[in-house]
């Protein structure tokens, strides 16, 4: 597809991040995986061995660990961004909202994590609507982690933590500035002697 047909945006940052201080845009990630399914093996490995290091490194991100019955383990990243452009993405997952009372339980093998850090929360809910559309609160990105190893999952999650939450689409220009011209834009009268200048010279002479 041509560049014109696919989505694109201009280079921008969220709230001029980095100008003053750097604020990590990733506000929370939710790891949904299965207790016993083969596809969740990598995620289970990641949760047992690597997620705490990630949480230590990114104190500004809440990590929700949600073991539930699912075929495809996912990580859902939510950003602080309120700026969002639409892109045609391949992640079109709709999940059902069940109106049973949400069951909340903590698995024995993951209980130790709840004592370590205030910002890792382990809950299990029945699946709720997870949309990849931008919402009033901020951007959401979902990545499937089925049959990925713990290292690959770590890479995916680190990538999400380093992103700004803005769409990953073609960026039209690799630069952006609010002041495109310092000396002033050229217009046909620049560096041209004024036809009326002899009169001005006279007047100046008179003064």
């Amino acid at each position, binding site marked *: 597809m041509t560049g014109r047909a696919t989505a694109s945006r201009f280079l921008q940052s969220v*709230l001029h991040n980095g100008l003053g*201080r750097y604020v990590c845009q990733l506000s*929370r990630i939710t790891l949904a995986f299965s207790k016993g399914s083969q596809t969740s093996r990598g995620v289970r490995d990641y949760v047992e061995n690597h997620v705490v290091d990630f949480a230590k490194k990114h104190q*500004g991100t809440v990590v929700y660990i*949600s073991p539930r019955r699912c*075929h495809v383990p996912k990580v859902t990243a939510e950003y602080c961004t309120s700026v969002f452009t639409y892109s045609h993405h391949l992640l079109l997952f709709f999940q059902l909202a069940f109106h049973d009372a949400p069951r909340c339980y903590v698995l024995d093998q993951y209980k130790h994590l709840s004592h370590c850090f205030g910002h890792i929360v382990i809950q299990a809910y029945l699946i709720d609507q997870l949309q990849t*559309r931008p919402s009033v609160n901020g951007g959401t990105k979902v990545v499937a982690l089925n049959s990925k190893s713990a290292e690959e999952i770590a890479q995916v999650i680190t990538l999400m933590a380093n992103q700004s939450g803005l769409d990953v689409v073609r960026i039209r220009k690799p630069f952006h500035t609010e002041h495109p011209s*310092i000396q002033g834009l050229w217009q046909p009268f620049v560096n041209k002697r004024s036809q009326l200048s002899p009169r*001005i010279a006279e007047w100046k002479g008179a003064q």
Partner: protein
Amino acid sequence: MAAFRCGVRSLCPFLSSHRPVLSQLLRTMSIDVQPEPWPPVPAWGRKRWLQAWVRKERDLNRGKVPIEVPRSQKPNWDYDAELLAFTARLGEKDARQLLRLAFSKQCYSGNEGGELCLEGTQLLEEGERLAVAFLNRVIVESMPALPESALEALTEALLGEEALAKVARDLGMAELIVDAEFPVSKSTLRSAVFAVLGAIARSGGSERAELFVRDFVLPPLSWMDLFEVWSVEDPMAVLAQEMEKCGEAPPETRLTRQTGIHTLLPIYFVGIYSAGNLLAEAPGDGLFAAEEEAARTALRHLYGFTDNRRPLSFRPTTPYSLPTQLIEETTSQRSTA
């Protein structure tokens, strides 16, 4: 069991073979309406054998709007953890207790009486005062010639509802505010920013609060145009006043260039001179328009609010609180609790 397993699978109409069962399930359980898939399905995804179902679903759901719900009412939400993460993100770990107060809208909207409300309102006022004082100081430092009315206008624009609502949203404050109303209104977001400022000032000192303002509220000043925020009806009169104050000769206008004057799109360049020295020159499509524009340009030069002015300084860089301290805090808190 079968129903549960059906529901667990990801609903992708092009791939799943349980569509009629699924839709019946939805209807019986009266689920909130599934929104239209976004972005719209590409041409190669619209299967002929699926169209009847899609049309039926759309007809059933016509006129229903998906209900937007605040983040706190969706699953996986722990307010304490979120607040902790917010403080870590900004590097303001001391402010956590007061931030809890700052984010409860009731405290500063005056619904509850008592001490809690008073403290919340105090935070709000402190924050606002601090922000205004800091912005005034910075603007006066960089542009000392600016008059009072312009200063007020600039500060108002930077601390306006639009600007501060954007700041609040992009920092993730909208989700933390405890408010019955959803979506949170811009005025609430603005008040929340001031309350947060107050909380930071009380716990971390006014320096931290000023750094907050500098990093998040001040930057739009760099690309603001003076006359977009400060309305001046007669710039020529203002210019004459300014020249008188400086003790210089009054401004005189002269036509310097013109082109296309007998066409539909004439352009006149008018220059403003003071004792024979050119102050500013500007174009316009009529003589008066050009003169007004020239006066505005002259004022911009006078106040130092040009496009090529020196950029604002963001040094020294904001010192970041050490993350390790946060870990120790939370461990001790959790073990005692």
